[in-house]
């Protein structure tokens, strides 16, 4: 692993992290070192409690870095200010295990809201881009449905559209398939992979789901707070562009 790579989207070394104070102090991460290159799809796996999610929240700037060095999208997270962290988070597309869409909005409105973070994008352009990405995730017919009327898989598609519509420089996903059945889970990761490849967005995805490991360029395993192994995935950006989206030809055809 080349931790001194200047091009890396995520570049960290010597990361230690603990919860609690004094007697109750419990160390979660031990001397973690990782680097993710532009356009790379990296899966982070490992048993529950191994520290995957904590690492993800550190990268996302949602927790304060305690020890070590961590640069994300050119922001150094050591002693970063709240404003700086907010700026960083606006460049990241988030996909959560729980979609947490706003229940009082339609699918389209849930995606459009993201442009309130980008005042430079006009309302018309925002609506157009939101419409296009919803068509790409296969919800063109249901854009104006309130999210309460959508199925679990459809909601997760809206969440993906919401995460990607702002053209983030990095996508962080936490168990995006956990709440879905096998088929929907498969469709979701294929979709994510296709969109990411096409936009050359790097993805870091935490997952338990062995059924989706094949989309990765690289798989990192975590055990008790240590990165234990890093292996080449069965998919690779160089060798198999847009693999796994062959069933959804319209995705590759449309840009947004």
């Amino acid at each position, binding site marked *: 692993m080349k931790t001194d790579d200047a091009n890396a989207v995520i570049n960290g070394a010597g990361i230690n992290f603990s919860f609690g104070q004094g007697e109750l102090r419990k160390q979660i991460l031990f001397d973690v070192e990782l680097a993710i290159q532009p356009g790379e799809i990296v899966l982070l796996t490992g048993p529950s409690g191994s520290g995957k999610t904590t690492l993800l929240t550190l990268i996302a700037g949602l927790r304060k870095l305690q020890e070590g060095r961590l640069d994300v999208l050119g922001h150094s997270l050591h002693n970063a200010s709240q404003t700086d962290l907010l700026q960083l988070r606006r460049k990241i597309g988030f996909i959560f295990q729980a979609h947490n869409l*706003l229940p009082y909005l339609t699918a389209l409105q849930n995606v459009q*809201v993201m442009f309130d973070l980008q005042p430079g994008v006009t309302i018309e352009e925002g609506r157009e881009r939101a419409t296009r990405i919803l068509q790409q995730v296969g919800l063109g017919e249901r854009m104006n449905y309130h999210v309460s009327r959508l199925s679990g898989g459809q909601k997760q598609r809206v969440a993906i559209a919401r995460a990607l519509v702002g053209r983030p420089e990095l996508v962080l996903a936490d168990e995006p398939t956990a709440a879905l059945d096998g088929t929907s889970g498969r469709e979701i990761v294929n979709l994510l992979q296709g969109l990411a490849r096409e936009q050359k967005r790097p993805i870091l995805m935490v997952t338990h789901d062995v059924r989706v490991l094949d989309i990765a360029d690289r798989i990192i395993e975590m055990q008790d707070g240590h990165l234990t192994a890093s292996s080449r995935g069965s998919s690779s950006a160089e060798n198999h562009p847009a693999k796994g989206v062959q069933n959804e030809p319209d995705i590759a055809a449309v840009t947004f």
Partner: protein
Amino acid sequence: MSQRIPLSWLQLKHEKMKLFAAVAGVMVSVVLMWMQLGLMKALFASAVVFHGSMNGELVIVHSQYEHLLHSKVFSSRLLYRLRGSPDVKDVYSVYLAPGEWKNPWNGEMRSIQCYGIETDSVSLKLPGIEQHLKQLRNTDVFLYDRMARPRFGDVVGAVERREPVELELNRRRMSLTGVVDLGASFGVDGNVLVSHANFLRLFPERKSGEIDVGVVKLRPGISVVSAQKQFQRVLGKEVQVLTVEQFKELELIYWRSATPIGIIFTAGTVVGFFIGFIVVYQILYTDVTNHLPQYATMKAMGFSDGYLYQLVLGQSVQLATMGFIPGSLIAAAMYAGLRKVTQLPLYMEPMRGVFLIFATILMCTFSGMLAVRKLRSADPADVF
């Protein structure tokens, strides 16, 4: 960062029952505040209708005068001394005393306020009084207060039916010659206007020329304040020279201290404010609590605290507006109804409206700001 999709409104209208409850709460609060402030103002205003009708800029009363029911007489010669001043256009004298009214229908005795006024000139600017002044010069006739309380008998009904009204006032047979609007108040249930001569017939113990109130009408362009100072110097310490506003204020000071009206209605207004405050707070608070995971998600995605505050406070302002308009319409209807029943001068005054708009917005914003504190517990790190 501001909303380009009307998130606040979409969130508000998403749950119709909650929206209805919140708007109803604001409405009740607005109606209460209108009523309390209106009644307070009307009760006080009713006490100074006579004072406000002075056809002049300055009023002269005895130095020990406190209020209408506690007057002291002074010699009208003092008043006539002012006639010589080049600043003065005219002076008028008013006698006043409580009289005994015998209800001609049931024979009950009631106290009624009697004023002896000029009949050659207009000393009180009451609407339509000019047409009655000539008849008022006749012996043993009076003008009746149309807005007097009903306990004096159905005089107004009799006038409408064009029936002659005759009755005993201070055990003297008097006949009615017309009606004017003056109004009942704290210490006064109704009023009667008579000529100076008839006043002295009704109150034989009173001496001609010993008056209660003098009215000074200045020539146009004369400074009221400097005239007041000059006249006070000329007339000496036996009388006080007051502007009409000071004359009113003297009456109000007494009623404010003599009655708990100010405290009661101010407290009522505050209660109204808090009803709205608590209803809106409860609804916004549960709303924020219910949406906490969504808000945490939005924070994680990079939405600022300010954006989320705006989302909640936007709802506050919308609730304020939606409650204020129907609340004010209801209050207007209630004002009209009460005006008819109580003869109190209840009107939707624009200044009170402006004050209440601000009070309502403040009420909703306060509750919104209190509810928004809950947002701090939305920790974006918990979303993962």
